[in-house]
C-alpha cells in the first residue's frame, strides 16, 4: 500500500511544476516565439505544455456545441451585476453633487428641521415607522435561518430558513470561517440538501463552517439576506 501511494506521488511529481518551469508570462512569450531561452524546457515539459494548452483554451473561448446559450446567459449576468454595482455609486454621487450647491443644502436642512419639528409636535412618542404589513406579521430586511446553527450532533441533512416575502429563489452559501465559499446552491424552496462532497466536509467533528441565505426576486436580484451563522458537528 505504501509502495502504491509512493508510486502515485512519483508520477504526480513528474507532471507538477519544477523550479525550471517558467511563469505564465514567460510561457506566453514562448508561445509567441520571443523567449527562446525557455523554449527547450517547455518542449520537454508536460506541465508547461499543459499550461499552454489551458491558456489557448481560455483565449479561444469557443463554446462547445450546446454551450452558446449558457455562455450568453453568464455574460448577461456579469453585465447586469456590473450595472447593479455602479447604480448606487452614481446615485450617491448625484445626491452629493446636489448638496454642493449651498442654497440646496440650506433648503434641505430647513425641510429636515421642519419635518422633525412637526413630528415631535404631533407625535405621541412612538416611532412613526410602520413595520406592520397586511396580516400583522413583522417583516425585516433579513432572511431568518432555522438551522443548522451552533453545535450540532451529526452531519447536517438539510439547511432550512423561513420564507422571505417576494422571494422567487434562494441562494445558499456554505463557507469556511475565512469567508471562502465551499459550496453554493439555489432553490425555490425554504430548505436545501448539501451536495454530498460538501456534506462530508461539514460532517467533520469540530470543523466550523458558516452559511447564509440570500433571497432573490424573479430577476435574480437580491432582496434580502440572512446573517451569517456558524455551525459545527460537536467534537468527540
Amino acid at each position, binding site marked *: 500500500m505504501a509502495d502504491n501511494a509512493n508510486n502515485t506521488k512519483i508520477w504526480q511529481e*513528474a507532471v507538477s511544476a519544477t523550479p525550471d518551469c517558467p511563469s505564465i508570462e514567460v510561457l506566453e512569450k514562448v508561445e509567441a516565439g520571443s523567449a527562446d531561452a525557455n523554449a527547450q524546457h517547455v518542449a520537454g515539459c508536460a506541465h508547461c505544455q499543459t499550461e499552454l494548452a489551458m491558456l489557448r483554451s481560455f483565449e479561444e473561448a469557443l463554446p462547445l456545441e450546446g454551450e452558446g446559450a449558457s455562455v450568453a446567459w453568464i455574460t448577461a449576468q456579469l453585465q447586469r451585476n456590473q450595472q447593479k454595482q455602479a447604480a448606487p455609486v452614481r446615485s450617491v454621487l448625484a445626491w452629493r453633487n446636489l448638496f454642493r450647491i449651498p442654497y440646496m443644502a440650506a433648503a434641505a436642512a430647513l425641510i429636515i428641521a421642519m419635518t422633525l419639528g412637526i413630528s415631535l409636535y404631533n407625535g405621541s412618542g412612538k416611532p412613526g415607522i410602520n413595520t406592520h404589513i397586511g396580516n400583522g406579521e413583522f417583516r425585516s430586511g433579513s432572511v431568518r435561518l432555522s438551522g443548522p446553527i451552533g453545535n450540532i450532533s451529526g452531519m447536517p441533512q438539510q439547511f432550512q430558513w423561513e420564507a422571505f416575502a417576494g422571494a422567487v429563489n434562494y441562494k445558499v452559501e456554505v463557507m469556511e470561517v475565512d469567508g471562502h465559499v465551499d459550496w453554493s446552491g439555489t432553490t425555490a424552496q425554504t430548505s436545501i440538501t448539501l451536495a454530498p462532497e460538501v456534506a462530508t466536509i461539514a460532517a467533520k467533528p469540530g470543523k466550523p463552517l458558516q452559511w447564509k441565505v440570500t433571497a432573490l426576486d424573479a430577476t435574480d436580484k437580491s432582496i434580502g439576506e440572512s446573517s451569517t451563522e456558524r455551525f459545527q458537528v460537536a467534537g468527540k
Partner: protein
Amino acid sequence: MAAQTTMAPSIGSLRAAPCPDRSLEKAVGAMSGHHPGEMALPPARGNAPSPEARGAGGVGIIPAMSWEELSDEALIARYRDEADKQTAEQYVNELFRRHHVKVARWCLSFAPDRESAADLAQEICAKAYQKLSYFKGESKFSTWLFSIARNHCLNSVRSRANAPVMDTDEEVMEALPDLVSDNPQKAVERKQLAGLARQLINDTLEDTEKQVFTLHYAEEVPLDVITRMLKLENASGAKAFLVSAKRKLDKAVKRWHAQQ
C-alpha cells in the same frame, strides 16, 4: 460557488458615449502619423489633454475614439491616469466586458451548471478588479486574467473533493505503472524516479495524453472537466486519453525495468 460583490462598475454610460467622427480621425491620423488605434480619447473633465491629443504641431483637434479601438493595456493606463472616477470606471468596464465571454466559457468547463459557472465568473472578475493594481504589463491582460481564472477554478474543483481516487471507473482506477517496487537498488531517490517518469511521459505520450495526464494527476481535475476544458470531442473524452496514456507508460516502464 457564490457570487461575490463585484467591483466592476456599470457600462450603461459607456454605451451612451458619442460615436466618433471617422473622417476627421483619419485626417488627423494622416497628419500626425499616428495609427488610429493610438489616438487619445477626449480629455476627461478636469484633465488636460494628453500629448497625443494635441497632435503634431500642437493643434487641438481631438477625434472622439471608440472604446473598442483601444488595446487592453491602453485602457488600463487610462484607467490609472484618469482623475474622474466615473470616466475611469468606464475604461475598466470596457476592459472586463471584452473578456466576459472568455471567462464565461472557461468557468462553464469547471461548473456543473450555468448558475455555478456564473458565480465562478463573477468571483474571478471581482478578484481581477481588486488586484488590477498588481498588473504590471509583463504579459497581455488576458494572460494575467487567465492566471486568476485558472487558479480560482482549479481551487473550486479541488474543494469539491473530486480527486482521482474517487473515480469509480475501473479503467481509470487502474494503478499507475509501478516505478517503486521491483526496484532492485531501493536506494534510488524519489526525485530520480520522478525525473525518469518525466522523461517517459515526454517520450511516450502524445500531446493530448500528456495534458490529460497532467491535469488529472498534478491538478486533480475530474475527467469530465478536462474533457470540456480541452474541448475533446471523442466519444469517451478525457477518459480515453488517460487510459491510453497509462497503457503506454506501463509498457515503457516494463521496458525500462527489463533494461535494468
